[in-house]
């Protein structure tokens, strides 16, 4: 079951979110996230951390697939989480899940260890210091052998490096020339990083094994 773009727009207006392309790419990106997780081995008994879960585009597919309370989503933007709850209600999904509003990578607050984590279009919106903080926090909550799938962009001089998301939320792009930052973090924190050749609609894909 899915939601068409106008239904999403109507629901988003209740929490004062203006229309955006992510309404119209909902299925394309949601399917991509869910497919790659399953290809990497996601099973119903696994625990999944969705970093930057937003309005639960992935959650709408993952929550009914996973065992109750095995989906945890974190996002700094309250209205997006509110929209996510509406989406889950609208789809009639009654399985338990956990959401946390935070932009400080407080993954430990869920109080569990994760088998899988995913960050779609999150690393693309973080500074190098924030990326380092994110990976350090992940290291503490991932089970040995747990996998983290994330998307990123390489564009050293992409302008603007600082921007206003939706015209109101200040954000930073890392402006990475190559994957050295991820490789260095892998060495320092002790995990394996692979620049994957998995196809993605618009970004590159990295896979880490802890």
């Amino acid at each position: 079951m899915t939601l068409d773009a106008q239904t999403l727009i109507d629901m988003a207006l209740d929490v004062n979110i203006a229309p955006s392309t992510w309404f119209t790419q909902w299925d394309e990106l949601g399917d991509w996230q869910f497919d790659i997780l399953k290809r990497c081995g996601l099973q119903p008994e696994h625990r999944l951390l969705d970093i930057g879960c937003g309005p639960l585009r992935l959650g709408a597919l993952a929550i009914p697939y996973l065992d109750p309370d095995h989906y945890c989503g974190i996002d700094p933007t309250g209205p997006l989480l509110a929209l996510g709850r509406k989406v889950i209600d609208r789809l009639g999904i009654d399985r338990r899940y956990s959401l946390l509003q935070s932009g400080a990578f407080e993954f430990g607050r869920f109080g569990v260890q994760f088998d899988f984590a995913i960050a779609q279009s999150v690393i693309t919106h973080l500074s190098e210091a924030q990326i380092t903080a994110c990976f350090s926090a992940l290291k503490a909550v991932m089970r040995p052998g747990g996998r983290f799938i994330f998307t990123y962009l390489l564009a050293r001089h992409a302008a603007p490096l600082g921007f206003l998301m939706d015209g109101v939320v200040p954000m930073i792009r890392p402006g990475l020339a190559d994957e050295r930052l991820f490789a260095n973090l892998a060495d320092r924190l002790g995990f394996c990083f692979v620049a994957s050749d998995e196809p993605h609609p618009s970004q590159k894909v990295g896979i880490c094994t802890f």
Partner: protein
Amino acid sequence: MTVAELDARDARFRFDFNSLAIPEDVLQPIRRDLYHSQGHGYHVFRNFLDPRIAAHMQRFWSELELTHVHEPLPAEGVKMLFNGCPDYYYGTQHGDHRGYLNFFWNHPADEVSYAVAMQVQWLRNRVMGRTPQDDIFPLHGRSVSYRTVISKRGKVVTPTHRDFAADEWIREPWRLQATLFLSAPGVDFTGDGFILETNRGDHVMFGRDVPIANGDLVLWRYCNEHSVLNVESADDQCGFIRMLFPVEEVPNRQRPPLRHASWPEMRVQILERLKATPLGQRVLVPIWHRIRRRR
């Protein structure tokens, strides 16, 4: 309430980024009006211009001679726009239609209109959930023009159409158009005027179904069908005047040279180019310095 009134009312008020921006909660009912499937598909900002400003703009554009500031729009139309191009006009001074295409990078024909247009684009961007400065200058190959259009008479002034064909809207679902009314139906012209499809699929005529006056601003959804039909005006009426805010493709082409360089200028250019080559740096530049020292 103006910022000055807020400032006078509350001693704790201070000018900062947030106090000068449009609060998100103010935008919520406007967005609902525009985008919701049960919404109108348009939102009228009544008295967007105060009467003095509205009267000034109506008079200014009614009386402005086409060629006073503007250049004729090339036959290829807006495809010929480029970053830094002049302001253009189309139509004839006393004909049924004429229009003035104005760009933010040019010295304005009317500073009042320039300031108003900047505010309209700022407001539209914020309602659309975009960054305030979007499309004001062609940072990404597109730029808004503030276009004054004057229609004195015509059966089909703008044929019925949608600005997005079929499902093109999914690329930019936020996209809105803006029409600033600079004359009033029934006062400055007779007939139908601006007709717009609502989100529910019915059609409304501004001036008949939706009250509208000089100085009102209408934001409306880009993908909704619209037209301008059956406009009539007498000699003593100014006609249907509105300011539109189309976002145009504006490639960063070089401005074409206004004239050929003179021979002395060309000589300097050739020498400058030669100086930049390795041969020039090793041979020509030392010679040039030696000659200067002798002088």
